[in-house]
């Protein structure tokens, strides 16, 4: 089985993000970048499938600036077999990213694409879905459990939906996007880090995919969320109820 895992380089969710004064983006100096947490969960799941099934191949792919090598190397150190970086210095919108991924899927023909449900930078939650529809492949999003049939030809996915869990199954090839509770990603181990140095990390220029100028969505302006105003202490329950009624208008 071949599993393709697209990963994205994003700012560490633990760091404080500042918006540039001109609103053109965020300040990236001194900001740590990591593998998008949902992508990391997808990679972990792929590695577990590989360990359970034996003989599976896990291929990483990312679209991003050249420094995205760092995240791909980390993925290789965690245990992926090889990686591919489509070098793009500018930000792509979800549809364009999906177009590039579609071409990679056609060239690689994986049995499964395991992706994060969304990246924590733009929170679009679209790439997996657009990719599935453009390939005309079945998809299961927000996976909290992924199980394969004995013959490995079919996958059953438990999805977290409003009000409960839902199970869907489809025949491979297909696309699964991962939710937060699917697994806890492993750390890169010492032997893993040593081995990663010898694994293939191929770079391809974005120009090879003929998507220049295809982006339909452009970021016009970014603004930080309004600062939360300080709280207030009340003396009595009556006062609280009164304020909830007159000021907050909640009751």
């Amino acid at each position, binding site marked *: 089985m071949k599993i393709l895992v697209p990963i994205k380089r994003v700012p560490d969710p633990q760091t404080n993000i500042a918006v540039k004064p001109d609103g053109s983006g965020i300040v990236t100096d001194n900001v740590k970048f990591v593998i998008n947490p949902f992508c990391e969960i997808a990679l972990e799941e792929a590695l577990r499938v590989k360990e359970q099934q034996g003989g599976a191949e896990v291929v990483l792919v990312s679209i991003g600036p050249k420094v995205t*090598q*760092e995240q791909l*190397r*980390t993925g290789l*150190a965690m245990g992926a077999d090889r990686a591919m970086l489509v070098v793009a210095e500018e930000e792509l919108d979800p549809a364009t990213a999906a177009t590039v991924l579609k071409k990679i899927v056609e060239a690689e023909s994986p049995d499964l694409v395991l992706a994060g449900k969304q990246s924590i930078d733009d929170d679009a939650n679209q790439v997996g879905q657009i990719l599935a529809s453009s390939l005309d492949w079945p998809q299961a999003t927000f996976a909290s459990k992924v199980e394969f049939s004995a013959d490995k030809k079919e996958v059953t996915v438990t999805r977290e939906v409003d009000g409960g869990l839902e199970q869907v199954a489809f025949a491979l090839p297909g696309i699964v996007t991962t939710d937060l509770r699917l697994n806890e990603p*492993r*750390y*890169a*181990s*010492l*032997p*893993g*880090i*040593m081995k*990663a*140095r010898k694994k293939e990390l191929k770079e391809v220029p974005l120009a090879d995919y003929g998507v220049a100028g295809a982006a339909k969505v452009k970021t016009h302006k970014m603004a930080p969320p309004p600062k939360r105003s300080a709280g207030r202490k009340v003396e009595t329950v009556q006062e609280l109820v009164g304020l909830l009624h007159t000021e907050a208008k909640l009751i």
Partner: protein
Amino acid sequence: MIEWNEQHLMLQDAVRKFVDTEIKPNLEELEHGDTPPYDVLRKMVRTFGIDAMQRMRFEKQIAREKALAASGDGAVAASEPPRKAVEGDGDTMGPALQLIPIIELCRYCPGMVTAMGVSAGLTSAAILSKGTIRQKEKWALPLLTLEKIGSWAITEPGSGSDAFGSMQSSAKRRGDGYVLNGSKTFITNGPYADTIVFICKLDEGNEPRERKILHFVLDRGMPGLVQSKPLRKMGMHSSPTGQLFLEDVFVERERLLGESEDAAGRGGRAGAKATFSMERSGVAAMALGIVSQCLELCTEYARTRVQFGRPIGEFQLIQAKLAKMEVARMNLQNLVFRQIELSAHGKGMSMAEASACKLYSAGAAVEVALEAVQLFGGNGYMAEYQVEQLARDAKVLQIYGGTDEIQISQIARSLLSH
């Protein structure tokens, strides 16, 4: 080596994440409770595959030693490159990967590094440098993987800096073995150790000064061996320290390291001194962790703590503290880089150089950590703020592994002997 490379940073990152999720939430228990550090350390060693790597390296070395022993020294030595040449290919990965977890752990828990270093470092190294192949397989490997916890016991109530001169612990021959007596104190991991390297003098009725130094391996629970409860101490609370009491402990000859009273050069005083030297080299990495953490905490505090209407970082006296801390951090980092580079080329520091390195590192850690307490003011004195712990922990770096005074006299002796 002038900076960390991508792989080094990757490991640093992974260890930081581990510390965040496994150690930070349990720090209170580890530092102020009765939880020994070993389970968390074992988890770390397993998580990062350090145990597997140690085992692989150990097996390679033992295979080489066996081949060497089987064919009589000459032949194999000529056909196979010696261990140093194999390792000394200039690759900084191996040594760097050993030091990075030490540095990162020391940002939160220098005690855990002490406990781990004495077990997987000192104790196993003593067995590896002096033991027979059989002894190494039996006792060193489980220490390297942290499956077993080890203690290295030389210090006694009446003998510290003058470790050999006033040593009272004794071995007397009896039949095919020895009877051991004595008491040891300040022994790291002593209360919990499974495997103890006990250092004593062979009593043949001769002058104490002339007696041979022998190393024995003891197991927990041997008749006549008592391991005390942890002693209460100033810092390094996550590293249990205790006393050992031996009363007529009978041991077979197979517990004598090297299985010979004359393992000259390898055993005896020279052997113990080689172990000292290695103990000293770990201190730079420990100090780097402590100093880096203090600097980070202080920089943030200087930015955010407001007095007289402005952040205290705007006062020049505070700026001077931060600048000094940064100088210490850079010096320590360079010392660590030098150690890595030396080790990558199959070299080590001379005894005097290791002493100078330890003397500087320990002093820098203590100075920076105390200044960090000062910079935090009253908060710095409160256990709630981490600098309070780091300052207590740092102090012991000037005492164990040879006190500052002993390092100074050794550096001076080496300088003056030329």
